[in-house]
């Protein structure tokens, strides 16, 4: 019995060495960290499908984060990895070319993160505060009415972080 068990043991150890020699890399394909913003009607609190076009620009950088988006109910924005707050300019344009620009200010903490040692590191965020500012010319009908912070963790999960309630009628 002992001799049989010895042979069995050698086989088991060989199998363990073989199995332990195998490795696989499990890096996520969806590895972009973005804040998800949903658009809602301030009147009904229901999802709003945007008829006008929306551009989103970061304050302080000559680039466009969201370019002429329409027929959308939500959009995603990247946050800065080394700053505590981001300021976004939300520029609404109607069919006549009339433009109204609101400001969204998001405060956040930044947390470097790695999913696995095989995968490149990235930065997750925890939202701490959100503020908004309506456009100066109040006659443009579409504007931010209020913003709710519904999920503070900004990571690989594409889950709604902010609810942006839009006013659709000029005051």
């Amino acid at each position, binding site marked *: *019995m*002992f001799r049989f*068990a*010895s042979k069995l*043991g050698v086989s*088991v*150890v060989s199998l*363990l060495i073989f*199995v*332990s020699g195998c490795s696989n*890399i499990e890096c996520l394909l969806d590895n972009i960290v973005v804040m998800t913003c949903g658009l809602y009607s301030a009147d009904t609190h229901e999802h709003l499908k945007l008829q006008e076009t929306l551009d989103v620009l*970061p304050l302080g*950088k000559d*680039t466009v*984060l969201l370019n002429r988006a329409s027929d959308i109910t939500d959009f995603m924005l*990247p946050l*800065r*990895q*080394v*700053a505590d707050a981001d300021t976004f300019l939300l520029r609404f344009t109607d069919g006549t070319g009339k433009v109204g620009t609101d400001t969204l200010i998001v405060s956040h903490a*930044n*947390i*470097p*993160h*790695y*999913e*696995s*040692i*095989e*995968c*490149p*590191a*990235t*930065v*997750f965020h925890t939202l701490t505060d959100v503020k908004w500012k309506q456009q100066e010319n109040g006659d443009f009908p579409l504007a931010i009415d209020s913003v709710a912070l519904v999920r503070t963790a900004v990571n690989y999960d594409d889950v709604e972080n902010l609810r942006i309630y839009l006013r659709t009628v000029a005051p």
Partner: protein
Amino acid sequence: MLKTYVSICALWLLSFAMPALSQTVADTAKTTTPRIRGVQYAQADEALNGLLHPDDPLFAGVSISGDVCGAVMAAFCSYGQYEGAVRVNLKNRFFPIAEVGLGRSNYVNDESDNHFRVSAPYFRVGCDYNVLKDKFSGNRIFVGVRYGYTSFRYDMSGPAIQDPIWGTETPFHFKNIAGNAHWGELVVGLETKVWKFFHLGWSARYRMRFSEKQAPMGRAWYLPGFGKNDNSAFGGTFNIIFDI
């Protein structure tokens, strides 16, 4: 005729005298030898063990051991451990054991250039059971269980993280990140007596992680005493054992 008559009488007397004489010898033997009648064994080897080891004490000794496999891994691989153990022998069947070690890892991943480093102690406690029928042979086949725990601090570093929008860099370099872990093990092993108090043996282990303290930036790549960090892991030891 007279001779024949005498011989017949002598044989007749002897036929009465011999049983009485043999009874006397038997009675004498009964009073001087141990009473072993009535002890029965199912197997011949059990009967032999019963004769060779008439006393089978509860406490049958203590042994110390070291894991050669883990030490070689610690010296030449990306992770390993220096481990020793103290084991108590109870009736050559039950072996309560305490294992203490120092788990080490210094690993750089080729794909990501991430660098993980840890050096921390761990311990396990548990019990083995010798399933070999002949428990006095010096050879043993074990099955057993363990509970393991480690508390450690690790370093993690890698290339700086690039912000694709703003072009900035976030350094990725952390030291002394605290962590701990609990796990259980199922053990199968063999051991053979090489010389008097010197034994060699090996064990194969299936480990199941019960809980883990995970840092916000990510979990440790290696847990001292457990192996590569996952829900479960396979492991093994090759032991040099000394009875003391």
